């Protein structure tokens, strides 16, 4: 089969938006070499469960490394950017089909949100070319991935970004139609394509 877009623009993996890079920049590089970590952490006898005294130092992270953070746009991006493109051996992130600024969460994420609040996630995808015939499959893949990965109080909407596809109305309609989505997932061939796309997700 001929590819719709045989020569797409590819982003370097290291240039994609990630959370890790931001954290890395803060930590000094020599820590491991000098086992600085051992010196800098609080003495063991002052940590749980030996003792429960708060440690006033402002530089150290929490003991266990756990962070209480709400599901934000970056997390949604991390979930879907690793999906493989159906025709190239590249991820949707690398092809810039999904982009961080095109992910919207309402109400906007905050740590104190009630876990039962209904939350809407809107992902706008940018096909690599305006007549991409696989835009619907990609949209479906994103939808399936998010529904499998988000808690039940999240509603997922996938749309084509305005002006990036010649038939965006029709594609959007298909993606929003629950019954058509359900029917599509019954189709063995399509299911095979989707499974292949989601294989690379971690």
């Amino acid at each position, binding site marked *: 089969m001929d590819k719709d877009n045989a020569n797409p623009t590819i982003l370097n993996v290291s240039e994609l938006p990630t959370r890790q890079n931001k954290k890395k920049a803060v930590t000094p590089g020599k820590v491991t070499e000098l086992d600085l970590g051992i010196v800098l952490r609080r003495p063991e006898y002052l940590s749980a469960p030996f003792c429960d005294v708060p440690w006033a130092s402002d530089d150290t992270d929490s003991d266990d490394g756990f962070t209480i953070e709400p599901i934000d746009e970056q*997390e949604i991006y991390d979930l879907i950017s690793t999906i493989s493109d159906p025709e190239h051996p590249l991820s949707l992130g690398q092809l810039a089909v999904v982009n961080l600024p095109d992910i919207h969460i309402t109400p906007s994420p905050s740590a104190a949100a009630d*876990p039962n609040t209904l939350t809407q996630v809107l992902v706008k995808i940018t096909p690599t070319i305006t007549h991409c015939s696989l835009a619907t499959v990609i949209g479906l893949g994103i939808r399936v991935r998010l529904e499998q990965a988000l*808690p039940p109080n999240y509603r997922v909407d996938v749309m084509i970004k305005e002006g990036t596809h010649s038939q965006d109305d029709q594609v959007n309609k298909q993606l929003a139609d629950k019954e058509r989505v359900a029917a599509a997932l019954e189709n063995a061939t399509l299911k095979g394509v989707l499974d292949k796309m989601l294989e690379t997700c971690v």
Partner: protein
Amino acid sequence: MASVPRFDELALKYVLAESDETALISEQAAQAIETSTNKRVTVGQWAASVHRWLQSSGEDDLISRAKALDFLASTLQILSRRDDTLNADQVKLLVTFFCSLFENDHKAGVTASTKALRHLIVTKHFQPTLGSEIIRSICKLGDDFKLQAPTTRLEIYHLFWSLLEIFTEAYDSEYWQNDTNAFILDLLNLCRNERDPENLMMWFAILKAILQDFNPSADITSEIFKAFSAYFPISLRPSAIPSSVTTDNLKVALRSCFSAHSRVGSHAIPFLVDKLDKVDQTVSVKVDILLTLDACLVKYDHPKQSVVPYADQIWGSLKYEVRNGEIQDIIKATLKVLCSLTKRLDGGDLEYFLDNSWRDLKEDISDSRYTAQAGRLLVAVVGAAPQSFALLMPRALEHIKKTIKHNTSVIHKRHLIALTSSIVKLRLLLVSDSDFNQCQPEDGVLLSDDLFGDSLFHDLYLPFWEEHSASTSPIEYIGILGEAMQGLGALVGQVFSGKGPAQRLCSDSTCETIISLIAKPVIICPLRGLKYFDLLEERVPQVLFDAGEEALRNAVPLYPPSFRYLLIQFLGSIQDTYRSHTGPHDLSLQVRNVSATLCTIIHSGMLEHDVCWINEAALINTLLQGLQWMLSERADPKFLVVFIDAIHTTLKQALKQASIWDTTPELTKEQFNHLVRTFEADNVPRADLDQPGKIEALEVGETGSMRPRRAYCLFVVQQLYRRFTTVSNPVISSSVPVGEFTRVALSGDLYGNGPSLLAKQDILLNQLGQMAASVVREFSEEEQRALELDSEAFYLFHTQNYDSAQKDAIPWGLSPANDFRTAPLSLGIIQGLWPGAIRPEVHLPALNDLVTVLVTIPMPCSDAARAAMDALLCVLSNKLDVKKSRALIEQRIKTQQCLIMNMQALMGHRQAIGNTDSKLRIFRSVLHYLAGDVARPLTGSDQNLLLTLIVENGAVDVMTGRQLAQNLGLMVMPRECLSDSYHAIHKKLGLGWFYHRNIVPYLDRCFPGPGVEEREAVNRAVGIFSILRHLDYNIYTSEAARIVRIGVRSLDTFKVGVETESLLTVLLHILDKDPSQLRGHLAALIPGLANIYEMARNVADAAEFDPNADGRGGDQTYSSKASRVSVRDRDPIATRMYTLQFFQKLTGSGYENHLLLPHRRGLRRPLATACGDSVREIRRTALKARQAWEGLG
């Protein structure tokens, strides 16, 4: 004549025998020959014994004929070991006989004959002249040779090899010149189709030996070359029969044929170059060709004849491999060949070659597309030998300088400056190379000294740097500056290349300028909060920082005075920034990072040990000054902590060096005091000196060690302890008269009393204590005893000038001054001591005093101090080495009695003194005591009364049983202070003893029943899981089934928090080690754990709305109810995490699907909800678990 039938019989027996009996039969035959009086006849009879098989020539008799001949061969094998049984005639006769078989019997005779001949040729009377005859007859095999089995051929190759060895010993190479070249041709002809890898290895070795030792004529050489070059490039096809020979073995063996002798050079080099020039060669083939060419160039003798004629051809072909090449392996191999080639040239040949190559390189250097590649070629050629460097470098450098000046392309500039840096680094290597000193001319200088001093810096680097390092420069310049830095770092170390002392080429002022350029991004910008480039968000780009740090690592060892400059910059920048309040808000973090960088620079392994030590001392000294300065500025304690941490890091590194390099004899108190006086008298800077001292003074050699690192480290600890504490005579209590007791207390530096300030000061004291522990533990038991460190733990080094009466006025025990806040300092010292270094007269009062304080209600100290005191209690109880005396055992029981009385008073009665919090604190202290005590279990029945009381009665207590049970794990938790590095006493299998004594008997009491109330059952289960989570599965494996049952019951009875966390930890252990234990309980476990996750979620959600729950910050009254609820109970993160991990691992534990599938439906909703957990890491685990369950079936 009785022996005639004997050989016949033996031969027949041999033919009919199984393979394991044959050895015995040939042994008999050999013995018969040896013992016979008339050997001539006997040997004749023995040889004739196989006659009947030789007569038959039918196909059916092949096997028996071969076996009969093998009888002769194996008899010979035994005879050959005993050397001179056979005389020369017999040997000759036998050789002729076996040789004839090669002509007559190609099917059955070859293997046995070869074997027999191999043994014959090593006998004493074998004549080398027979060798040629053997070869000639083997060659008569002709085409039948390749029909022989590979193993037979291998035997023949071994025979050839042995014959060659005999020839080499017997004749010189001249002998072969005319006559016997023919046998080589026959040999080549015979073996030309060899394909078996193992045989090829032998064949190549034979060819190599012929080339090296037999002086073959030109024609023959050419034939030999054809024989082995036909195999090139060699590879190995996968075969059904595994072979021990690899492709690499074959490559190396074949390569050694190419490089065997310069006489094949005229064939080999053109052949290899020609192969290289062919298109469509794979990477591995190209690399093989290049490595072979390199081997030839390196090994050939007479380079004038064998190498020089091909130099141009090689250059002409190989330069394109680098110029247009993309594969690093090929490029590296090519550069190696060119380097080897240049090394073999000298005089006019070298000049001619360099002129020729420079013509190409010059052009390419000017072309930005090829600069990088041309640079690599240039470095390979000039780096080959000092001569080539001297011949080519002046014009090359001139050309590079000119090109840089007239260039505007960023990429081109970057390549050119990188090339310059490589050349500067290369010169550094050449000067330090040992070969260089040998080929150096007597009076001259070889390495263009005049080009690599100040002139290079002022002509090239400085203008270049000034042009590109402006703060408004575009960001593309970052890379250029990084490359330049590498060169600058190496430029500092350039030395005179002539004979005599290594004199630096750059002047001091140039070196200082260079260091200041490199120090800017690494030290000055981070500390002063300056931006290196205005256009960038970050202060210093990481690339530049890394390049600068590496450059400093190189430069500091080459120009030692530079470290002092860096230290002055470090301190000066901190002071200016702190004072001006304009610096970065994270100054303390930057100080930490930069001091770590400084520490890395001196410990990069490039400094000489003595210089390294001097720099360590200088760094510690500077950090002490920084600390001193911060104290004088009354800075926030967090700045003091940063300096303490930096000193700690440096001390640790210094002590690591000490353990490798310093051979210090045992340190005595006198020596230490003497050293301390030297440190002080020689103006070695102390924390209270403003001026940097003369660090050279540390090179004192009188005390037996050139590098008194450990003593200096202890000295530093001593100084810091004295600085932060003081001796006072306060009124401790009304019962003690004024002045009777002298006490140590915190010094005026730690002033103020706000709770957050106190907390920060406590951090300082704890870090200082841990630094002391790191230092003290490095001393041996004898040294610690000699230095009386046990009492210093309570004097805190304040009694140096006291007489014994004054010392006696200070009791051995923690100082109650400042609410016991000096406890972490005492702990630090005691923690590092060997058990034998604590005298009982110090140990016991300290321990008993500590127990008295810890059981006092209301608590006379803060929680932080109490934590240190609990740790101290644990260490003291562990290090009481009771084995040494009966009195100590009694003392130990006395201490325990005191604790038992206190425990009994606290347990049971509602009316008991104190509130639950105080009780719990005391319980925990007792558990800390036991933790130290049970690490070295004493097995007598009356030895563990306190332990028995806690385990037996604790769970039954109405008021505090549950909380006590939750904390039981404290007794067996792995602890740093009980680790081997702190010399704690450990008994092997101690945990197993503990388990069998304190857990197994109570497993049955975890279920309510006759005599067991529900409360006791639950409390026991809580306690058991609290302990089990710290034990290895192997310890409780035999009771695992019972433990799982208790676990299943506990799903409903445990509180969400620490209790469920312990339970889940144990369940995860079991699931990991033996999933079958859980198989029967899945129906209860899965819904039960889903329920626990949900409760844990609810607890966490509820905590968010509880204003009191936030124990951090706010008012720190120690009895506040909220602060006593542990963080893990407020927000059971670990419980949630472990539950989901458990669900995830269930699917991968080898259970059949029919056991799991019924639960999938019930888990879908909980797992989906868990994907919305408030903690990101938990969400990730939930997603994995969810996918794992969806993927089932």
